[in-house]
């Protein structure tokens, strides 16, 4: 204890900022003076509390907590940081600086939360951290053992440890990796609801297949009890499995919210997010104090289902406009702006009026025209403009009803899923040939659709004529063309033909009548 010079140690770490894994350096300095322990560098209260966890943990592992002045600086010091993942680097830094342990590596990267008994616990954001680790220079990476599955998924070399003592052992002696390999992507389970259970509603079935085949946004309208919510679930079963890249993007979002379990990692089912009308803006598009992703990001590459669309506050719905167009959502918190992915298929369901009877049994409908107008008016034209397919679900006839009760167990969805997968591959290939980003028809934001979608002169003229006749907007025309392309793809047709445009036309959103009601 003779030296007056401070003893220093440095441990790198990664922390979560929005969805990004960011690099930080934990510097520990121990010098003479009255015993104190301070952490600087704009940490929030979870980092301030780390002091007590680290102190208890070091003692629990049989080391001594230095009775000197301890200063911990987390740099870059000008950025706000939060989370309990700094526990492990602080503890290692203190032990290294006080000379109680030594390391055969110079660049150490570590993160993890400590328990009072010396355990290392996983923290949210594993995937983002792994992605960041790829860019950080390091000799050894120490992560909570739970995260080693993610590490092997992304083929990051890291040591998964369960106790602080294990971590120390890894630093002092070279030990072989023992990453838990993941059986990366498992088989897709059978669809929960099969498409064959929709009896007597071939239009809804076709609309769903088209929506899935081109990843188009879809709006269901219809009286209560006609199977709108059921249909949304059927769509999930029609979607092909996630690709590895999509899977990782989705896991990045999910892992930032909670610690993933093995099932989350290995499943390749596309997400289905059910959102009910009392959803807050930040829950839908992301936000909150620490800018966490909302439902639209959690539905990444899957289905975002908005039930009872007109019951949503118009303000909330309007927030969807930009993300649906750009596939991204931006949330600013603490002077940092975070970009979350928002590529999803929007499926919405609505009643034509509040009581839902104004179309099928107008005599029973209790709504006045102005009520209906107000009800439908809650959905802005801009949002409707983004719905590629509109499908009205009518009440089914008696005979179809009989079949619905005595339904036998068919597996049509599974076959369709295969077909839809092929259709997606066709769409990707087309994009590749044109040298643009691989997208499905519904997500295509290219300006020059005629070339990409192989629309002949005659067909383009026809589409323009139709749009003019049916008084479609330019956006409406593009929507028509996109949907026609999907229909052509399902037909295995190389070029879009007039008949495809004709079918696409029947899925357009109805015009407003003189009374301002869409019927």
């Amino acid at each position, binding site marked *: 204890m003779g030296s007056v010079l401070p003893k220093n140690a440095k441990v790198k770490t990664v922390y979560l900022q929005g969805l990004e894994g960011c690099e930080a350096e934990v510097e520990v300095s121990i010098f003479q003076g009255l015993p104190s322990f301070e952490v600087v560098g704009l940490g929030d209260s979870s980092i301030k509390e780390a002091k007590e966890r680290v102190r208890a943990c070091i003692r629990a592992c049989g080391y001594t907590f230095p009775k000197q002045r301890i200063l911990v600086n987390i740099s870059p010091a000008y950025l706000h940081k939060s989370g309990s993942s700094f526990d492990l680097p602080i503890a290692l830094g203190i032990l290294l600086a006080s000379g109680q342990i030594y390391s055969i590596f110079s660049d150490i990267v570590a993160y993890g939360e400590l328990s009072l008994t010396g355990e290392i616990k996983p923290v949210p954001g594993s995937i983002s951290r792994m992605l960041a680790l790829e860019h950080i220079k390091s000799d050894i990476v120490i992560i909570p053992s739970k995260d080693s599955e993610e590490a092997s998924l992304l083929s990051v070399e890291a040591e998964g440890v369960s106790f602080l003592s294990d971590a120390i052992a890894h630093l002092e002696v070279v030990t072989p990796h023992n990453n838990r390999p993941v059986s990366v992507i498992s088989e897709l389970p059978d669809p929960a609801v099969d498409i064959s259970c929709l009896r*007597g509603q*071939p239009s809804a079935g*076709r609309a769903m297949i088209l929506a899935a085949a081109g990843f188009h946004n879809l709006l269901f309208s219809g009286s209560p009890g006609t199977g709108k919510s059921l249909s949304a679930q059927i769509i999930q079963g029609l979607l092909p499995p996630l690709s590895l890249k999509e899977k990782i993007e989705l896991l990045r979002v999910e892992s930032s919210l909670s610690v993933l379990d093995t099932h989350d990692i290995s499943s390749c089912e596309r997400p289905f997010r059910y959102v009910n009308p009392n959803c807050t803006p930040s829950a839908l598009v992301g936000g909150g104090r620490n800018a966490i992703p909302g439902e639209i990001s959690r539905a990444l590459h899957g289905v975002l289902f908005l039930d009872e669309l007109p019951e949503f506050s118009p303000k909330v719905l309007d927030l969807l406009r930009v993300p649906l167009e750009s596939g991204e959502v931006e949330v600013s918190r603490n002077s940092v702006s975070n970009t979350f992915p928002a590529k999803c298929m929007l499926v919405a369901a609505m009643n034509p009026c509040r009581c839902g009877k104004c179309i099928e049994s107008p005599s029973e409908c209790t709504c006045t025209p102005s009520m209906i107008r107000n009800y439908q008016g809650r959905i802005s034209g801009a949002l409707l403009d983004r719905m590629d397919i509109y499908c*009205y679900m*009518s009440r089914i006839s008696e005979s179809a009803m009989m079949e619905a009760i005595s339904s036998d167990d068919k597996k049509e969805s599974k076959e369709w899923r295969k077909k839809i997968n092929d259709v997606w591959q066709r769409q990707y290939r087309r994009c590749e040939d044109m040298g643009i980003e691989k997208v499905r028809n519904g997500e295509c934001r290219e300006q020059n659709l005629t070339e990409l979608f192989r629309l002949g002169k005659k067909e383009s003229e026809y589409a323009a004529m139709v749009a003019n006749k049916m008084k479609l907007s330019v956006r409406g025309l593009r929507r028509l063309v996109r949907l026609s392309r999907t229909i052509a793809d399902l037909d295995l047709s190389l070029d879009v033909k007039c*008949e495809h445009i*004709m079918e696409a036309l*029947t899925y357009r959103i109805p015009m407003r009548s003189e009374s301002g009601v869409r*019927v």
Partner: protein
Amino acid sequence: MNQESDLKADLFCSLLISKKILSSMQIRRLMESLKIDSASDLYLNRSEVLTKQNLTTDQWEACSKFIESPANVRIDEYVEYVDKKGIYSMDFFDSLYPSYLRNLPNMPLVLYMKGDRRLLSEQSARVSIVGTRRPSSYGRRVTRDFSHELTLHDVVVVSGLARGIDGIAHMTCLETGGKTIAVLPCGLDMIYPPDHTDLFHEIASKGLLLSELPPSTKVIRQYFPARNRILSALSDCVLITEAGEKSGTLHTAAFAATQGREVFVVPTSVYSDTGKGNLELMKDGAQVATEPEDILAFLAGAIFFREIDEIKDEWKMKKLKEKIKKMPQKLEQDEVRLLISEVLMSQELSADEISMETELPYVMVVKELGKMEIEGIVVQEKQKYILTIRL
């Protein structure tokens, strides 16, 4: 079919009519009562048919006089002359005589034609464009625009070769590369009005000239209204681009109304003298056409129903239904259309219901529905499809 004897018989009938010996109605009644079903039979057996028993005394006397007159004696020369002029005839008993004419009263017994008779087929759409002989610049422009646009959509333009609107309609149609029919108020070896000689020859080679008057008949003013009745009968609808207050065009409109042909009128200024007739017609309830699409939409329906009429209650429907059960993929689009319109005829249905009623695959139904909607044959209201034109 023996064209020459046909022509001879037809000329013989026409002469009987134009000499006012017998009216065309009387000839038809006579043939009906004697169960003669072609003009050539009538001609060959004329001595047995045109007897004292079958005719009134006056008629019989006139008849025998005519048979001895040089006109009849030298009929072979006449036939040769007509044939040389490229004129041929078609009578009421010809299987090619259009059914839309046959169904109307007072239609000519014999039609003389020069040019392409296929223009009269039931599949093509015909629109009469008629109007004043002294059009304003507005009238000219409207006529040109409508004639051009309609021709682009394969509509056959029908008119009367008169000066003014009629001539412009024909010329625009030919310039656009379309087909046109001119109905003349004189024999087809005459050209009336003479300043349209070039147009006459062009129509003879590219379109069809038509008249009910036998060749060599000169223009008679009184005949003009009668010509107009054929004009309107030939067409699916009559478009009046500009008509004066007391115009022959108004006759055409009146004929069209009694024949069940739609009359379209292009609006004119209330201060215009040359367009007063248009405004009168509009007051009387004529359809207003502000753009060629108005007429095209009407034609789509008209043609469609002509087809439906043809098949509606025949065994074809039964055959179609058998075909659905066996191989729905092999159905032709127009067969699908027929089936859809058949079920929509009696009720309004949603796409789902149509698919169930017709037992057709949904995708097939929906493709055709989209097409029918664009063509204006069905409209969607409250998610149900409705036929716009009911029988």
